[in-house]
């Protein structure tokens, strides 16, 4: 596996597209294992496209592109400008709110990042924000999405660790709020330092708010309809993406009448390249993960870790650090499946609360989706916004610090997480 990682680094340095670099270096693992059929890399690549969770990615990319051309984005942004335009970096703040809203809709950080890259990305750069900052904000703030129920990470953790999923769901809200506030401060800090101008000099008047609300009613209705649809059991999360596309088309063709055959085809053409660059990479990264799982690398490292100290909070800090390191290479789902059965019993044995640990663990695991060199949300955002990974990382630092400090707070003050589930479930 060491050879694989080295080859990956070399390929990246000579400027090979990340998709090929990850796939080709992953294949090297199979050269070292002649007992495995050499078709496995291709089989796992195809399997990624049969994964329901990833089915949402192309749909939300398309939804984003059609919202741009249907006029929904414009009225949504107008509304955002009225509401937050007097803040510095207003649109970046909107990205935070939108990620929380999407939590109730898709539950997937990757789908959220994919859609926001298309609806907010260019608008943010047009308002003078750097590409790296834009990509960083859209990517890292989608951390909120899996914390608002129904998040697939919580269901996985609850199932593997035999922890009440209802409790996990209830426990997600407060940390999401805290993380949202912390991210908002980080965004404000950067915008202030960079002098990203507010869009308007002063707070919007009531009349302006009213007119923006009337203009934006269809855009606002969108997340509401999706949420209601989901709650009423009309759609499963995988169908919500398709509904989002239909809704954007309906508004574009029928309500605003901004969408014409020509712009319909243009948006589809852009979607083709977007889907190709994001999904090809995500598909090929399965080759790389196969070797990591096969050699049980996370398990080997993890079992040595929990023997270091018997202070449950310190152990949680160590676990978070380890999960972050693993998250550089592996995405959240794989981390949760592989590490829950190792860490949770250790935390339980030290008297830790499984719901408290679970939320912290899921936050740390989800961050793996955003960190280079391998992260599905990062890949999606950076390839759609054409941002180099270096700029993305540099400009995400304030957000990473905000998330890191909040995570420490969540570790050392368990009540923040446990208050709501304890109130609801006793």
């Amino acid at each position: 596996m060491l050879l694989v990682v080295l080859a990956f680094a070399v390929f990246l340095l000579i400027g090979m597209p990340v998709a090929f670099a990850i796939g080709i270096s992953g294949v090297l693992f199979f050269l070292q294992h002649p007992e495995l059929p050499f078709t496995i890399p291709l089989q796992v690549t195809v399997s990624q496209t049969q994964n329901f969770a990833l089915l949402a990615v192309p749909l939300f990319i398309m939804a984003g592109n059609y919202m741009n051309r249907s006029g929904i984005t414009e009225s949504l942004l107008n509304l955002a400008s009225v509401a937050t335009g007097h803040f510095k970096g207003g649109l970046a703040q909107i990205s935070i709110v939108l990620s929380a809203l999407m939590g109730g809709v898709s539950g997937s950080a990757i789908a959220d990042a994919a859609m926001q890259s298309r609806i907010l990305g260019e608008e943010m750069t047009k308002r003078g924000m750097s590409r790296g900052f834009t990509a960083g904000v859209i990517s890292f703030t989608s951390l909120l999405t899996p914390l608002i129920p129904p998040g697939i990470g919580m269901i996985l953790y609850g199932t593997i660790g035999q922890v009440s999923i209802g409790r996990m769901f209830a426990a997600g809200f407060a940390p999401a709020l805290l993380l949202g506030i912390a991210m908002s401060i980080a965004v404000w800090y950067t915008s202030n330092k960079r002098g990203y101008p507010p869009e308007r000099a002063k707070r919007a008047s009531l009349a302006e708010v009213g007119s923006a609300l009337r203009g934006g009613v269809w855009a606002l209705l969108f997340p509401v309809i999706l949420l209601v649809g989901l709650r009423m059991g009309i759609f499963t999360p995988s169908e919500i993406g398709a509904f989002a596309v239909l809704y954007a088309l309906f508004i574009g063709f029928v309500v605003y009448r901004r969408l014409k055959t020509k712009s319909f085809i243009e948006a589809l053409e852009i979607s083709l390249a977007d889907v190709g660059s994001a999904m090809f990479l995500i598909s090929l990264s399965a080759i790389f993960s196969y070797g990591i799982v096969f050699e049980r690398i996370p398990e080997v490292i993890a079992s040595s870790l929990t023997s270091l100290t018997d202070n449950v909070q310190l152990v949680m800090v160590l676990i978070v650090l380890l999960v972050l390191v693993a998250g550089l290479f592996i995405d959240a789902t794989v981390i949760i499946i592989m590490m829950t059965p190792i860490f949770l019993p250790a935390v339980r044995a030290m008297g830790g609360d499984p719901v408290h640990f679970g939320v912290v663990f899921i936050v740390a695991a989800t961050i793996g989706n955003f960190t280079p060199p391998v992260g599905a949300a990062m890949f999606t955002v950076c390839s759609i916004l054409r941002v180099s990974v270096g700029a993305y990382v540099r400009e995400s630092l304030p957000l990473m610090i905000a998330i890191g400090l909040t995570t420490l707070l969540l570790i050392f003050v368990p009540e923040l997480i446990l208050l709501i589930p304890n109130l609801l479930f006793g």
Partner: protein
Amino acid sequence: QEKHILRMNHVHSPVEAYHSAFQEWAKRVGERTNGGLKIEVFHSAQLGNEEDIIEQIRQGANIGQNTDAARLGNYVREIAVLNGPYFVDTLDEAFALSKLDIVKKWKTELADKHGLQVVCFDFVQGKRHVFANKPVRNPGDLSGLRIRTPPAPIWQESVRAIGAAPTAMSFGDIYPGLQQRAVDGAELTYANIRPSNLQEVIKNVSETGHITLINFEVVSAAWFKKLPADYQTALVEECSAAGQKVSKVLADAAESEKAALVKGGMKVTDNVDLEAFRKAGDAAYKALGLTEVRAAVYKEMGR
């Protein structure tokens, strides 16, 4: 001494009895072969989904998979009959299947033609019941209910036969599917419920017992052939032993799991019209052309 590794993949979570059973199998085989044949167990389908793994096994990978007759029916059509409604009634009937000539013939065909070596099929998960948000006494009560079913023809037909609308969905989607009412219920064993916290989203169980799920442990036939004879024997014998043991554990656990669920507020419907369900179940065999296959197996069983 020859060294071999088998990586055993299954979809169950590490807290379920199956996982411990596979680990016990691994331990015993390791002891009997002095560490010559090492089994590494991968829970929660970490190595990949069942269908992918079966393909890898067929191409000779040293991987094993816990699967069922429904999926093996993709290769040897007749074998799916073992997954049909009300096919066997007791554990002993299930354990005796491997001694029937007709079943041995299917096993040989799986190995010779399709590269799939069945190591044992003594892992019985128990009787499956209908878990839904309304009580079910006869097939008519299931009419219009969307019941989550694994995506294999015999499953789909079995559930359709007993009156429901089968809805294919992966196991992990059951919880959100029920919570968001994308389905009205699922057909599962008692032991399936609490490990996946499904009691949080289902309140009724109707004891239809419509399928007794028998699992098969399969490995690559090419890989199996290369093992020394004593390794092969150890692998097969310990598989049966671990399987029969966990099947009994699960059968006993059904009662205690049921009690725990009832205590948690689950309502049990036990006055189910089993005769009506049995009769309805015949339609599944007809739909898949397995009626004669079933008759042939029953004849050999002396049933």
